[in-house]
């Protein structure tokens, strides 16, 4: 047992009064598990990640703990990877990867070799001296992955990291991520709105309801790895989950259209 969320709710105060984004989220994730969250947009998927990352505080009665100790704020044991553009453009690729190590005050002589090692893992050694604006979207996300893994976090929190990539690049990154996960065995919590992506990656897929976000259902995915998006059984499983999710999407659409 590693990460535990109990009765986690989150209310945002807005100009139009409080809005409940999450309600009574309850789940736990074991060490080394790969868990995907899916849900319609605006269901609070990213808020769950931000709360685990310690970037946002949940409502008072909520508890979030890792290995028994409560989460108080952000820390390098939980690294967040964003949809895009979170690399520092003023640093070249290798310096971006080194950033977290330097913040951790890692001994200087160990920083470079370690960064090189993780850059090799995402097949970007050749681009160590490039600047971020010279890289494609897929390459940027690979650098982001290396930058996150190099600090040896307990878990990776991935917030729709592949959603702005084209289909081929995404497919290749899904393979790469599975390979890396099978080697390093870290806990990964992955948020997406793409069901096949979730089924492709997750040991479990958790479906969230629309506003407020609650856990609607959980699916255990037992397909053999590595999985490919086009695989027949994967598509079958995805369609099954789609039925569940569609209800929620329709609900969002109805709410958004019906208000005026």
């Amino acid at each position, binding site marked *: 047992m590693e990460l535990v969320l109990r009765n986690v709710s989150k209310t945002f105060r807005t100009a139009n009064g409080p809005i409940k984004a999450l309600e009574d989220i309850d789940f736990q994730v074991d060490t080394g598990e790969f868990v995907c969250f899916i849900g319609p947009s605006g269901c609070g998927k990213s808020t769950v990640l931000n709360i685990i990352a310690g*970037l946002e505080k949940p409502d008072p009665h909520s508890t979030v703990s890792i290995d028994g100790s409560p989460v108080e704020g*952000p820390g390098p044991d*939980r690294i967040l990877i*964003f949809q895009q553009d*979170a690399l*520092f453009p*003023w640093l070249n690729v290798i310096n971006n990867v080194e*950033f*977290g190590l330097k*913040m951790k005050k890692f001994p200087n002589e160990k920083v470079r070799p370690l960064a090189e090692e993780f850059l090799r893992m995402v097949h970007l050694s050749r681009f160590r001296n490039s600047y971020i604006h010279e890289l494609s979207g897929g390459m940027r996300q690979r650098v982001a992955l290396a930058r996150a893994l190099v600090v040896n976090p307990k878990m990776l929190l991935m917030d729709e990291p592949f959603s702005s990539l084209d289909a081929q690049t995404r497919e290749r990154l899904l393979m790469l991520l599975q390979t890396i996960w099978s080697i390093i065995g870290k806990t990964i919590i992955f948020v997406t709105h793409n069901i096949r992506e979730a089924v492709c990656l997750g040991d479990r897929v958790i479906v969230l309801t629309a506003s407020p976000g609650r856990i609607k259902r959980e699916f255990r995915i037992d397909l053999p790895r590595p999985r490919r998006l086009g695989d027949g059984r994967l598509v079958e499983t995805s369609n099954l989950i789609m039925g569940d999710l569609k209800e929620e999407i329709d609900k969002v659409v109805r709410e958004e259209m019906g208000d005026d």
Partner: protein
Amino acid sequence: MIRHVERLALYAALLGLWELLFRLELWPEYLFPSPLGVLESLLTGFANKTFLVGILVSMKRILLGYGLSLVFGVAFGLMLASMKLLDEFLGAPLLGLRTLPSICWLPLGLLWFGLNERAILFVVVMGAAFSISLATADGVRNISPIYLKAASTMGARGIRKYIGVILPGALPSIVTGMKLGWSFAWRSLMAGEMLFVSLGLGHLLMMGRELNDIRQVIAVMVVIVAIGVVVDRLVLGTLEERIRERWGLENP
């Protein structure tokens, strides 16, 4: 390439027109010199080293003053951006003070420091520092929140966060402020030098007037424009362009 040629041709034509007007003798020579006369004055000025001394003295003042305003401006801008209270109290008055022509600080400087270098330094610093600090504060406030989130999940705190993320994140805006600050600093230095400080380009300008030497006046103006343009375009402009390109921002 063609455009450079065309531009040179245009400049040559303008100079030709100037020479033509001079040859027509519409105005006496002491009011309307010829371009060749100005060139000659420029060459003599450099040959007898008066211009060189003027440039050196002015550059020394501007480097010191501009350097100080860079340090103070950036430090103060960071403070403004990180202390909400300070910003709420001082934000509006600072915007107001920025509209004050910087030479208006001179009387205050003279009263505080007397007729000396420190008064002119004061004017230069006051001229440039406000733009730089406001631009710095602006730049910090506009750093993409995703950089800050990424940095804090990787454990960036305190001074490391400032040096590693906040300053570089605000750099494009800081450089824009530096350009603005430079033009204010250069103008206020010239105004100050014309009013009282000995040596320097502003002083040479006034000396030209006192000697009734219009060719020197225009020659010194050419030098002042040249220095202003070189620093603005070549030094700061190139810096700004490089930074915007690397930061992935479109060029303005």
